[in-house]
């Protein structure tokens, strides 16, 4: 059943309780009215045994019912309290308070009223009242007795006056009958009858007495009179008006013969009879009350007990009702709290209270609704989180798979210097097992001299260009390109570093092979070019000599010149190559690059008409740890090429700037530019698109930049021209 229905029923209960109280009040009013009216009721009714019996038993039954209900309520309360039902203690206190508050005054009232009643009943039967009633009764009885006595005397006298023999013959009997009327008038009776034994003879009635007919004389009366000689009786005459007081007398005549029975009757007038009867009845009623005095007391006592118990029952009911009414929303709140604590956030309290509890219930329901909504949001977020985690895990697995399948070695280091992860390629490159690397501090894992050099790279500043390092690992020299980047954390700081190793050994080997192949081809080509004129000059000399030597002298001189010149060219070629091969390593020193740039640019001032050569040096350039001579040579080679490629009007700009821990030197021209297909070969020895030149210039530039652990790259210079950008570490590292 829904709580709302329960509450509605409870409200109906309240109406029922109000109705019950109304009925109770009405019942008490009726009882009070009946008690008051009881004083005016006929005594015969008040003292009716059946009524008393019914009243007493109804009282007893009601008391039992009330005791049962009261006991049931109290037992129920006790059981609830024992079972620790919520609110049982409160109910108990409330009921106890109500009963306690009502018990004392009710008991006082009960005992006081009982005593008052006992006293009142005792006063009813006090001597004075009894004597008054007894006196009245005696007067009424005396009146009847006196009349009966007088009638008896008259009857006896008349009986003696009538000889028994007078009735033996019809003639004598007729004579006696004729005398009856005179006797009646003589004694002044209302009724006079003559019997022979119990046999009716004759009777006369005073026509003015009010007797409508001859009264019926009961046979027992006659028998008594005959047997005892005298009898009296009070009878109700025909018509029921008044009372007829009869007296009969007979006697025994001399000789033992019975005399006739004479019955004399006096009619008591209705008013006197009624008054007399009232007196008698009043006394009788009083005696009945007296006889039932104890029963009256008991009945009234029962009535008081009934009222007392009714009040107690009403008090306990009121206590229970109020407690129940108060506890209903509290129990609903407790139940709601229990349900919500067990996870049922859809539970709502439905108590249609109309007092302060309504606010509490509404707040509770609002809180529950808010909790439910928050839980829904949390669940949604949780689902999203799970989904994101799953995606993340998938991505991590993908990244892991990618990392595992990467040719490059990747190591992640935490901020504390411990290796967080390393892919298979890294382990293979470094000739280490995962257990020897992952989870250990890098200084401990790479304690050997070779790997210590690699570890030193990890201290390079963020954004440093990749560095090449050559290590002897597993008895083999390997060349790696190492790139160190920061591992950003969620706050934008650094959570560690990532080292990416690329094994360049094979690439370098291949590049070297290709380079030397190209160089060999170039050398062959360069050597072949002078060999042809030398061969032609020599063949021409030999042919002229075979022809007899005519004109040989004229031919010797130019041919030898050709041979000498071409050999000279070959010598220059060999010298250049020899110089490239013998180029020493950089001698690093703190160098003010702005001065180097200024000095180099001074060589090219006005070198080519219409071509402007300018410098742009950053204010924060400062010093760099480089070989100043080699850097000077780099700039000269690059500017030479730019001047060669730039036609007037044109511009050549040399820029030197610091970007954090690196220095950038850029040489930009507005010349003809470099074809894309030539860019891969620019830095190879003996590659040149110029008509003259050895093709070693950019090869030497590339060698110097590499020796400084720097990079060089070529870009277009829109709208036309080329930019060579050289990036060098300001700290002055040098490649191995």
């Amino acid at each position, binding site marked *: 059943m829904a709580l709302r229905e329960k509450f509605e029923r409870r409200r109906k209960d309240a109406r029922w309780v109000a109705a019950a109280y109304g009925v109770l009040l009405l019942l008490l009013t009726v009882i009070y009215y009946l008690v008051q009216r009881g004083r005016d009721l006929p005594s*015969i009714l008040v*003292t009716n*045994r059946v009524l008393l*019996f019914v009243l*007493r*038993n109804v*009282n*007893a039954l009601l008391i039992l019912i009330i005791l049962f209900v009261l006991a049931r309520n109290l037992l129920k309360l006790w059981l609830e309290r024992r079972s620790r039902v919520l609110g049982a203690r409160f109910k108990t206190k409330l009921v106890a308070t109500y009963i306690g508050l009502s018990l004392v005054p009710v008991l006082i009232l009960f005992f006081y009223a009982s005593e008052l009643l006992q006293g009142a009943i005792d006063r009813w039967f006090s001597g004075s009242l009894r004597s008054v009633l007894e006196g009245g*009764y005696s007067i009424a*009885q005396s009146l009847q007795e006196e009349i009966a006595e007088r009638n008896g005397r008259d009857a006896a006298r008349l009986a003696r006056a009538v000889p028994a023999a007078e009735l033996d013959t019809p003639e004598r009997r007729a004579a006696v009958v004729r005398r009856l009327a005179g006797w009646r008038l003589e004694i002044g009776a209302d009724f006079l009858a003559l019997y022979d034994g119990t046999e009716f003879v004759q009777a006369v009635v005073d026509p003015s007495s009010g007797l409508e007919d001859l009264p019926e004389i*009961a046979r*027992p009366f006659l028998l008594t009179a005959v047997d005892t000689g005298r009898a009296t*009786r*009070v*009878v109700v005459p025909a018509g029921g008006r008044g*009372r007829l007081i009869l007296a009969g007398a007979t006697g025994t005549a001399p000789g033992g013969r019975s005399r006739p029975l004479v019955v004399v009757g006096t009619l008591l007038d209705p008013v006197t009879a009624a008054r*007399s*009867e009232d007196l*008698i*009845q009043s*006394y*009788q*009623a009083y*005696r*009945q009350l*007296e*006889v*039932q005095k*104890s*029963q009256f*007391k*008991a*009945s009234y*006592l*029962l009535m008081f007990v009934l009222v007392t118990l009714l009040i107690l029952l009403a008090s306990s009911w009121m206590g229970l009702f109020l407690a129940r009414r108060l506890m209903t929303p509290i129990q609903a709140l407790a139940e709601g709290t229990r349900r919500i604590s067990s996870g049922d956030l859809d539970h709502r309290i439905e108590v249609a209270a109309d007092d302060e509890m309504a606010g509490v219930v509404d707040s509770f329901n609002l809180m529950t609704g808010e909790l439910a909504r928050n839980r829904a949001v949390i669940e949604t977020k949780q689902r999203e989180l799970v989904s994101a985690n799953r995606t993340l895990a998938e991505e991590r697995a993908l990244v892991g798979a990618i990392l595992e399948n990467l040719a490059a070695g990747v190591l992640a280091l935490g901020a504390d210097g411990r290796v967080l992860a390393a892919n298979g390629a890294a382990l293979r490159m470094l000739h280490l097992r995962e257990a020897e690397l992952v989870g250990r501090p890098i200084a401990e894992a790479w304690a050997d001299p070779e790997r210590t050099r690699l570890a030193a790279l990890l201290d390079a500043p963020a954004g440093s260009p990749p560095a090449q390092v050559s290590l002897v690992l597993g008895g083999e020299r390997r060349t790696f390109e190492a790139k160190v980047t920061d591992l950003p954390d969620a706050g934008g700081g650094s959570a560690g570093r990532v080292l990416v190793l690329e094994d360049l050994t094979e690439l370098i080997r291949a590049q070297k092979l290709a380079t030397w192949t190209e160089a060999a081809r170039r050398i062959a080509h360069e050597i072949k070019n002078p060999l042809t004129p030398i061969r032609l000059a020599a063949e021409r000399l030999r042919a002229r000599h075979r022809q007899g030597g005519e004109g040989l002298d004229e031919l010797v001189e130019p041919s030898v010149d050709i041979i000498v010149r071409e050999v000279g060219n070959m010598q220059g070629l060999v010298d250049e190559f020899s110089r490239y091969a013998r180029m020493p390593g950089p001698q690093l020193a703190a160098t003010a690059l702005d001065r180097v740039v200024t000095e180099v640019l001074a060589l090219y001032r006005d070198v080519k008409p219409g071509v402007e050569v300018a410098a742009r040096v950053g204010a924060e350039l400062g010093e760099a740890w480089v070989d100043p001579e080699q850097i000077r040579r780099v700039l000269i080679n690059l500017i030479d090429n730019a001047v060669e490629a730039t036609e007037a009007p044109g511009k050549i700009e040399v820029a030197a700037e610091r970007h954090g821990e690196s220095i950038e030197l850029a040489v930009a021209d507005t010349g003809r530019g470099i074809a894309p297909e030539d860019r891969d070969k620019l830095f190879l020895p003996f590659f040149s698109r110029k008509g003259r030149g050895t093709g070693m210039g950019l090869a030497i530039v590339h060698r110097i930049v590499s020796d400084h652990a720097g990079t060089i790259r070529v870009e277009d210079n829109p709208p036309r021209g080329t930019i060579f950008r050289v990036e060098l570490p300001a700290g002055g590292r040098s490649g191995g």
Partner: protein
Amino acid sequence: MGLRPALLLVGLLAGAGGGEPAIRDLSISLDGPRLLASFRLENGFSDELLARIESGLPSGFVYELELKRDRKRWSDAHLGAARLEVVAMYNAVTREFLVNIKHDGRLIESRTLQERADLEASMTQFAAFQAFTLDGASERERYLIRVRVELAPGEVLGFIPVRRTSSWVESNKVRPRR
């Protein structure tokens, strides 16, 4: 002195001595199939009862009679039961006592008496009263009755009614004869 006054005298003497109400002088005889019972109630007609009667309240006794075979240990010894209600009421105007006697709820006698002694005798003494009819009774068996009287109910604590009865009294045994 007739039998009734004599019994009355005996009764009064016995009553004067006080004691618990009891059935006395219970005897039965057979008149053909009619079983006639005679008994009297001793110490039953109390002053309290007389006062109740004279106050005009109908009051009296209920005599309970049971007919039995003379087989004490047999379960079918009980043959029948009868109730004899004797209720008296006083008319203070005519100064007469009206005594009604009912046998199993049927009025069998109504007397009007003027004397208290007659009243007591009529309520407590029964002579040759036809209690049962032994139709089809076996000559081979003997029969008896037992009687007790139920007095006006008493009270405990002033309001709890209690039934007051005398002890059962058994009569002589009679054997029907054809």
